[in-house]
């Protein structure tokens, strides 16, 4: 009898103890989706929170949070989180790392979810823009930002140096790299900076594609299997860049820091989203023009950012539905005020003028619409981080006044060749 009583007491105690657990089981139904991003811009975060508020209303119990990681170490931080078993549900991915993520199976396929989302209209996503994020016909990350490169110009500095402005050269049909460097050189010789390839800093060499594409050059073949850095177009393009740095003073040299947006350089190659950096106080007479014509003709370059769902996440299906919501036609319009969309319906002057109030109609036509329609994406490859480092290390020999351009590029091909063939 006594034993029975003890048993009953124990069961009662266990039941009472289990009650909070039952409560917590219910609370577990609440899901938090986490997205890693590389922007900490308050305006961006406000927009994302506004978008996720709509999703949270439709999905009670679901919350979406954004984790801003530093841009420079974003990929390292993201892969460390994945390695540590703390992978986010969704992540922004650089265009250069797209092949690694898409080919490794790290991402959850999105195509079915996007097509099943009412009113999504997945077919209007530009196939060119989606190319890098697609494998075997399945989209693995949505390219939410497809941003063309253009050249921001400081007309005040150019006129003060007595050179022709890009607008004048375009009007005269003379907007070529040769003339662009001549203008940059004229300003460079006054003690100010000439042309800056923003974010290049003699390390992110892939940004030089904004120049070498004009020569029809590429670091590797279209199938990615062989090195083409030592071929004539690349040698010619980088010889021109080398001369611009060390002979013409048309570009700030290695170790020199010059800020275009502070009014200290003639021109900078960057993406149109950087228009927000233009000074509001003491503004200078600025312009935005397309990339000059190279020996291989006219061309455009675009940078991309994709958002993908980590397959390892516990709520991959729900996260995919959030990506579909975030990039639906209605929210794409909102996003395009910061991140140019790859949806064809949003690639028109009317929408772009609304979302880029700083730009003129001509700038939108010549740089944005034409750029997105015809541009190729910055080079990328599977195992890009290793290739990037090896080429960076090899190119260090090029950034010396007496460098042997062809010899250096030949050596780099010898180093990265085996990696490309893997």
């Amino acid at each position, binding site marked *: 009898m006594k034993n029975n009583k003890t048993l009953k007491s124990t069961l009662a105690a266990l039941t009472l103890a289990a009650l909070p657990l039952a409560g917590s089981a219910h609370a577990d139904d609440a899901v938090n989706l986490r997205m890693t991003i590389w922007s900490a811009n308050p305006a961006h975060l406000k927009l994302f929170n506004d978008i996720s508020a709509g999703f949270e209303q439709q999905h009670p119990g679901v919350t979406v949070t954004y984790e801003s990681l530093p841009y420079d170490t974003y*990929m*390292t931080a993201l*892969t*460390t989180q*994945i*390695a540590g078993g703390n992978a986010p549900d969704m992540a922004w991915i650089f265009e250069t790392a797209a092949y*690694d*993520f898409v080919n*490794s*199976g*790290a991402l959850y396929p999105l195509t079915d979810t996007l097509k099943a989302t009412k009113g999504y209209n997945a077919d209007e996503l530009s196939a060119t823009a989606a190319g890098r994020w697609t494998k075997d016909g399945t989209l693995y990350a949505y390219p939410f930002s497809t941003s063309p490169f253009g050249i921001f110009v400081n007309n005040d500095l150019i006129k003060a140096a007595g050179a022709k402005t890009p607008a004048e050269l375009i009007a005269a049909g003379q907007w070529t790299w040769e003339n662009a460097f001549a203008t940059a050189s004229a300003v460079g010789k006054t003690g100010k900076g000439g042309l800056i390839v923003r974010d290049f800093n*003699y*390390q992110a060499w892939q940004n030089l594609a904004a120049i070498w594409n004009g020569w029809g050059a590429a670091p590797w073949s279209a199938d990615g299997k062989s090195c083409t850095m030592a071929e004539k177009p690349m040698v010619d393009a980088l010889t021109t860049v080398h001369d611009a740095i060390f002979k013409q003073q048309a570009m700030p*040299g*290695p*170790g*020199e*820091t010059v800020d275009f947006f502070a009014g200290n350089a003639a021109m900078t190659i960057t993406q149109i989203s950087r228009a927000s950096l233009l000074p509001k106080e003491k503004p200078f007479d600025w312009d935005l023009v397309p990339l000059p014509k190279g020996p291989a003709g006219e061309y455009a370059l675009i940078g991309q950012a994709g958002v993908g769902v980590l*397959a*390892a996440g516990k709520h991959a299906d729900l996260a995919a539905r959030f990506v579909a919501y975030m990039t639906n036609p209605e929210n794409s319009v909102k996003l395009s005020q910061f991140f140019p969309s790859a949806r064809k319906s949003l690639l028109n002057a009317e929408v772009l003028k609304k979302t880029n109030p700083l730009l003129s109609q001509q700038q939108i036509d010549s740089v944005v619409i034409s750029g997105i329609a015809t541009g190729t994406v910055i080079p990328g490859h599977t*195992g890009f*981080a*290793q290739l990037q*480092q090896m080429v*960076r*290390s*090899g190119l*260090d*020999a090029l*950034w*010396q006044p007496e460098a042997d351009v062809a010899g250096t590029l030949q050596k780099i091909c010898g180093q990265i060749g085996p990696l490309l063939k893997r």
Partner: protein
Amino acid sequence: MAVAEDNAPSEGRAPSPFWTIARRDSLAGFLFIAPQLVGIVTFVLIPLGLVFWYSLHEWNVLAGTFTYTGTQNYRMLVEDGSLVEVLGTTAVFSAGLVIFNMSLALLLAVLLNQKLAGITVFRTLFFSPVVVSLVAWTIVWGFLLQKNGGINGVLQVFGIEGPNWLRGEVTAMISVIAVQVFKNVGLNMVLFLAALQGVPNELYEAARIDGAPRFKQFRRITLPLISPTILLTSIITIVGSLQVFAQIAVLTQGGPGLSTTVLVYYLYQQAFQFHFFGYGSTLSILLFVIVAVLTFAQWQMRKRIVFHEN
């Protein structure tokens, strides 16, 4: 003696209790060191074992695969062409750092070991970089070492055109060594200063009476008597030099070429940038072995270089 008698087993007496005084003392001792022991096991020994385990695998973080590959990563270590250059760079960096740091620290300690008014101000001044945030310190030096930065600006005042410090292979190495030395020289300086103040004055007085010049006094009295501190600082500095990472990451990213890619930075690249976590772990084991061998060798050499060990 009484304890021995108490504990001695004797026929017909009750068996001695389990908790003898010796056992209680041992338990108390273990409990005292338990927090430290738990820390070492959790944060040193277990991770060390895990790193060794990872080094036997190919770990693809993105694909989520973890495949046992046996000694493949160790074979890769032998075949890695860049590793020889990296080890050479590490050796140059460590040697430069140790020689420059210890010489400067000793010189400063000797100069500051004076009874002068306001000498504490100078001691504080030289020690202050030790407490400054490492990354902030390095970023500031990064600006100073730019081609159009502060150092070349000062040189220009004297009509000297300074080099592009962080872009030349030799100047980049000199720069990262100097930045590290100026950051930490104060710590060694304080240790040397404490050792110098422990040298009895009578020995110098006797040497002066015997007519020994200042340098001879330094060589025959000061150096032998502060030799334990020299050993300590050399071990700390060498081990520290093999762990330098932030300065390289902020200032040069291992460049130009591989000229400042030291072993720690190389393993960071392999593991966290290229996602070769298995090979990165193998490089960690190599680093551990190098640190262990160097520390052991220095410890063995103490009888030769440390005065008190004779």
